[in-house]
């Protein structure tokens, strides 16, 4: 049985921890709101972009851009891993890194060379520990305020590297924000660009094809060639947004759980504390009564 003093200190400590987790929960909530707003602001652009790109891709030839053509011989694979910089968000980062690592190991076993680009410190640390080659790292972006230019600069580098044949395939690992309670790690190939489907249009196929009557300037192929690198930036930006939002949601949940766990712990500890206090009072009383009896004796 712990002494009274010890239990008291412990209760104090847990209460302080609770204050911290609660504050972190609130911070995450407000950051989450910001991140979601950013996602909302991005949606109109992304939708319109996908619409135009999808219909352009239908019209243009396969050879419109080298970004569309799979390499005959794949030697080197580039993985862009998006994680958070900070911890205390449950299994968020470990899910992402495990997925990336598993993927990289599989590819290594097939004799592909794997290189990493890291967004976020957690992923970088894991890659370092596992001894993967890191091409570049970008810290202080995920979960913070960042603009589209971050994605376009990094995206451009990626596209250039691909065109210079530094690597033959590019994948991105990020966390998809499904809902407040669910964030799933996703792996997606971004280069060479997979055949683009004009997704939602399928249902309305009877209508005239979207771009049927458009005049394109320059030619469709050139337009597509101009848009495809942007498509990579858009994907990268959206992955970063999703990961940021997921991080805050994951942290919110984790901190909420931690706060609840603190409450539980305080309750159990208080019970133990009261019991110990009672026990000592009883013991004291017994002593006094015993002493009094002895004096009467």
């Amino acid at each position, binding site marked *: 049985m712990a002494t009274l003093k010890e239990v008291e200190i412990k209760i104090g400590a847990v209460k302080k921890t609770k204050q911290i987790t609660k504050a972190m929960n609130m911070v995450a909530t407000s950051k989450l709101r910001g991140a979601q707003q*950013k996602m909302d*602001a*991005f949606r*109109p*652009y*992304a939708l*319109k*972009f996908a619409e*135009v790109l999808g219909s*352009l891709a239908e019209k243009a030839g396969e050879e419109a851009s080298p970004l569309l053509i799979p390499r005959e011989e794949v030697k080197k694979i580039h993985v862009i891993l998006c994680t958070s910089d900070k911890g205390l968000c449950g299994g968020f980062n470990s899910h992402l890194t495990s997925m990336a690592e598993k993927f990289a190991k599989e590819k290594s076993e097939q004799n592909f060379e794997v290189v990493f680009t890291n967004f976020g410190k957690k992923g970088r640390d894991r890659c370092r520990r596992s001894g993967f080659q890191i091409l570049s790292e970008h810290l202080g972006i995920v979960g913070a305020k960042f*603009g*589209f*230019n971050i*994605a*376009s*600069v990094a995206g451009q580098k990626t596209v250039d590297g691909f065109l210079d044949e530094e690597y033959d395939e590019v994948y991105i690992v990020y966390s998809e924000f499904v809902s407040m309670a669910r964030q799933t790690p996703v792996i997606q190939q971004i280069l060479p660009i997979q055949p683009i489907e004009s997704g939602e249009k399928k249902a309305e196929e009877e209508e005239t094809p979207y*771009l049927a*009557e*458009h*005049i*394109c*300037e*320059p030619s469709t192929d*050139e*337009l597509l060639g*101009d*848009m495809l690198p*942007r498509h990579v*930036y*858009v994907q990268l*930006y959206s992955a970063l947004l999703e990961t940021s939002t997921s991080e805050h949601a994951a942290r919110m949940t984790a901190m909420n759980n931690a706060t609840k766990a603190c409450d539980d712990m305080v309750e159990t500890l208080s019970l133990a504390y009261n019991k110990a206090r009672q026990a000592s009072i009883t013991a004291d009383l017994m002593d006094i009564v015993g002493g009094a009896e002895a004096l009467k004796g």
Partner: protein
Amino acid sequence: MAGNIRLEVVTPEASVVSEDAQIVVAPGSLGEFGVLIGHTPFLTTLKLGAIRYKAADGVEKYVFISSGFAEALPDKVTVLAESAERRRDIDVERVKQAIKRAQERLASKKPDINYERARAALARSLHRLKLAETTRG
């Protein structure tokens, strides 16, 4: 044809303009083009520059854009740009600072500088400044 055409300027970060206009003039990569209501469907890439449009009340307005593309439909022009700024939102002081920064970066001969990026930034800033100083609205 009389009537107004809808102009939407969208960037990945925000919707910058959503307004009716009498005419929209935009810098296409093969030359500047104007759009009135009833325009043939048209898709083009844009270059760095300014979109000029006359709002429904006849006021001329300008929006700075860096590269992107535009789609014209009979009743609507959609511009997707990587960045866009209304003329009145351009902060001249900030632009001047950006120009200075970019010039310094280009002038310093450090090896770790991305020249292309600095040059592009300089070009953007100069365009902004020009737009801000030569026009109103």
